[in-house]
């Protein structure tokens, strides 16, 4: 390393004359970037899955955790032996990696179901909630961010920014509890918890499309009452989870618009006499939106964590709700499997988001 740094000045002096040193030469085209980015998924997943494995094994074997005290030591030892938890840790680790490669994330102890089945059963609910939350975040965060940037440092900007900080400072479960208290208990406008009333759930199971996404199922039954019921149940959780992300979007849009409004080409347009309103609408707006794609990728991780808390608050029977049930049952095989599976999902979505971002913004192709 030392030799490289000392050799640097002679290397770079000719490079300094050309406007683009280093970067263009080292970088490839879009294809190369996508390939590198794709290959990066595997170490990422390996690291996460290993982290989860090591952490969960550090607590001892899952069978003792789940059933310790309820069985005699002999029964316990027998169960541990049957599940293979008495083998050397390295063998268990390789075995674990192998089964993940085959798509097997383990079988839960408490209700004896494959973790992948838990995912397909409850994943739709979490997906639905995350989708609603993103809609709320877009509808609230992006327009307000634009207004805040246009009215920079005035009263309205201050109000929005303080609200954004306030929304960030509010734990999502406390926001959910407040919403419940006000809109469900005091005003009695909306249901307290759950994804639908029991009657609607039975109707959806009988006549629905069976996607697990209740809104689609309700639409497929063609029953307006069912659709209304499903939507009414979704409003409060969507707001609680969506506002958190809306605050992030607001800040991001505001910062980016202010940034693009200060760039050279906007300055040039301004000097040609283009009105401020048109500058914002035609020149500064669209480039400011590109980074949002990237942030959505980061928000997915945040949404998943938020979903665990929101689902618990509203008894929304999705992955997060189920994860907490398994945590309380001390079913660490289920916890390990679900967290590992979520890690894979996060890694894959991040890849997809990066690809989209690279397609939209040529500057990202390193």
């Amino acid at each position, binding site marked *: *390393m030392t030799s*490289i*740094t000392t050799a640097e000045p002679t290397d770079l002096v000719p490079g300094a004359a050309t406007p683009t*040193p*280093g*970067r263009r030469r*080292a970088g490839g085209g879009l294809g190369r970037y996508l390939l590198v980015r794709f290959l*990066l998924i595997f*170490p*990422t997943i390996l*690291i*996460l899955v290993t*982290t989860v494995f090591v*952490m*969960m094994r550090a*607590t001892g074997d899952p069978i003792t*955790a789940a059933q310790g005290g309820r069985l005699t030591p002999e029964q316990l030892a027998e169960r541990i032996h049957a599940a293979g938890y008495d083998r050397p840790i390295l063998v268990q680790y390789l075995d674990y990696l192998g089964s993940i490669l085959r798509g097997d994330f383990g079988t839960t102890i408490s209700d004896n179901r494959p973790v992948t089945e838990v995912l397909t059963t409850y994943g739709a609910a979490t997906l639905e909630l995350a989708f609603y939350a993103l809609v709320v975040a877009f509808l609230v965060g992006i327009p307000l961010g634009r207004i805040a940037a246009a009215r920079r440092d005035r009263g309205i900007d*201050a109000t929005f920014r*303080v609200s954004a*900080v*306030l929304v*960030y*400072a*509010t*734990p999502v*479960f*406390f926001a959910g*509890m*407040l919403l419940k*208290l006000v809109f469900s*208990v*005091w005003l009695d406008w909306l249901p307290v918890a759950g994804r639908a009333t029991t009657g609607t759930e039975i109707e959806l199971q009988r006549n629905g499309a069976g996607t697990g996404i209740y809104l689609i199922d309700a639409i497929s039954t063609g029953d307006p009452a069912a659709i209304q019921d499903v939507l009414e149940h979704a409003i409060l959780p969507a707001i609680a989870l969506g506002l958190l992300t809306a605050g*992030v979007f607001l*800040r*991001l849009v505001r*910062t*980016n618009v202010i*940034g693009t409004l200060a*760039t050279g080409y906007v300055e040039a347009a301004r000097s040609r006499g283009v009105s401020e309103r048109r500058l914002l609408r035609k020149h500064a707006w669209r480039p400011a939106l590109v980074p949002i794609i*990237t*942030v959505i990728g*980061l*928000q997915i*991780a*945040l949404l*998943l*964590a938020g979903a665990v808390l929101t689902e618990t608050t509203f008894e929304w029977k999705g992955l997060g709700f189920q994860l*907490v049930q398994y*945590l*309380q049952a*001390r079913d*660490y095989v289920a*916890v390990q499997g679900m967290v590992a599976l*979520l*890690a894979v999902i*996060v890694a894959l979505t991040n890849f997809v988001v*990066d690809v989209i*971002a690279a397609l939209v913004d040529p500057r*990202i192709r*390193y």
Partner: protein
Amino acid sequence: MTTTVIPERAPLYKRLPVVHQLRSSVGLQRGMLVAGLVLVAIFLLTAAFAPLLAPYGFGQLRADGELFGSQQRPSSDHLLGTTVGGFDVLSRVIWGSRTALTTIVLAVALSIVVGIVLGLLSGYFGGWLDRVLVVIADAIYAFPSLLLAILAAIVISNGQASKWGGIWATAISITVVFVPQYFRVIRAEAVRIKAEAFVESARVVGAGHVRIMTRHVLRNSTRTLPLIVTLNAGEAILTLAGLGFLGFGISPTQAGDWGYDLNKALGDVTSGIWWTSIPPGLAIVLTVLGVSLVGESLNDLADPRLRTRRRAAALAGTVGTTTAVPGGVLAAGAEGVAGVDLLEGADATPLAGPTPEDDAGSRAANGDDA
């Protein structure tokens, strides 16, 4: 720090992190900073004087041999009523500030130490260690922090929480989540600074690696830490509350814990009982709001795009004074892209930028955000 291109030495007290920003702020920004500082001060004072302020103990169930009773409405005996478990709400909220403060201090201190050591080694020496650490930090960073904290809490306390066991478990869980952030920031700064002329000079004079790392690189890479510390302090309280809410809280006989109280209050909400959930919730909100307002203001004052003219700022970037958040996106998200942009701006400047090899490394570091 950010207002002048050529920094002049001011008296020491004026150059202290927060004091400096307070002096250089105006209007709304100053208002936000002052409001944040006031909230933080209230929080600190509450934590410090909890035994004097709280009417009862955090685990106290009876006074004068008489039980408080469960879910009692606010009254003169219990200004904010009692919880479902029969504790005094106001007392638990006040005692909770102690738990929160202890956790923040432990978590931030631990992550700073670990993050700085790893970041310095990684950024300064580069090579395979750097690559491996960057990939690991990125992988952990992309993962939902709460899930990671849950796993860590299982490992450390196995769900059994004594007072210090619970606080340590939470603090270490939060540390696991935070270390990648400090690592990224310090590493990015180290990569940038080690290419500067003064490091080169130190090496020519014959200074060893340790001396260069601690004297020259470390001292110049800690500039953005106050900002990240404030943002992380808020995040730490939220994670503590989230863990408590999910049932990894500290048991009520050991310490006050806002998240635990909210968990127990979840059922009360349905029956219209507001006094068990709103006080601890508001305590969390106001505390996080206070630290975030301070952090937000510091960030704005450090970010040239939000404060000074762009030209002057870009110039200052090459002498290394204005990078807002060099490591990339923080959990809050919004400032990150600005930080990355600035970093790239610095890279594009010849000579001041890192070597091509390190450039590739720093791109990998930012790869997930960019």
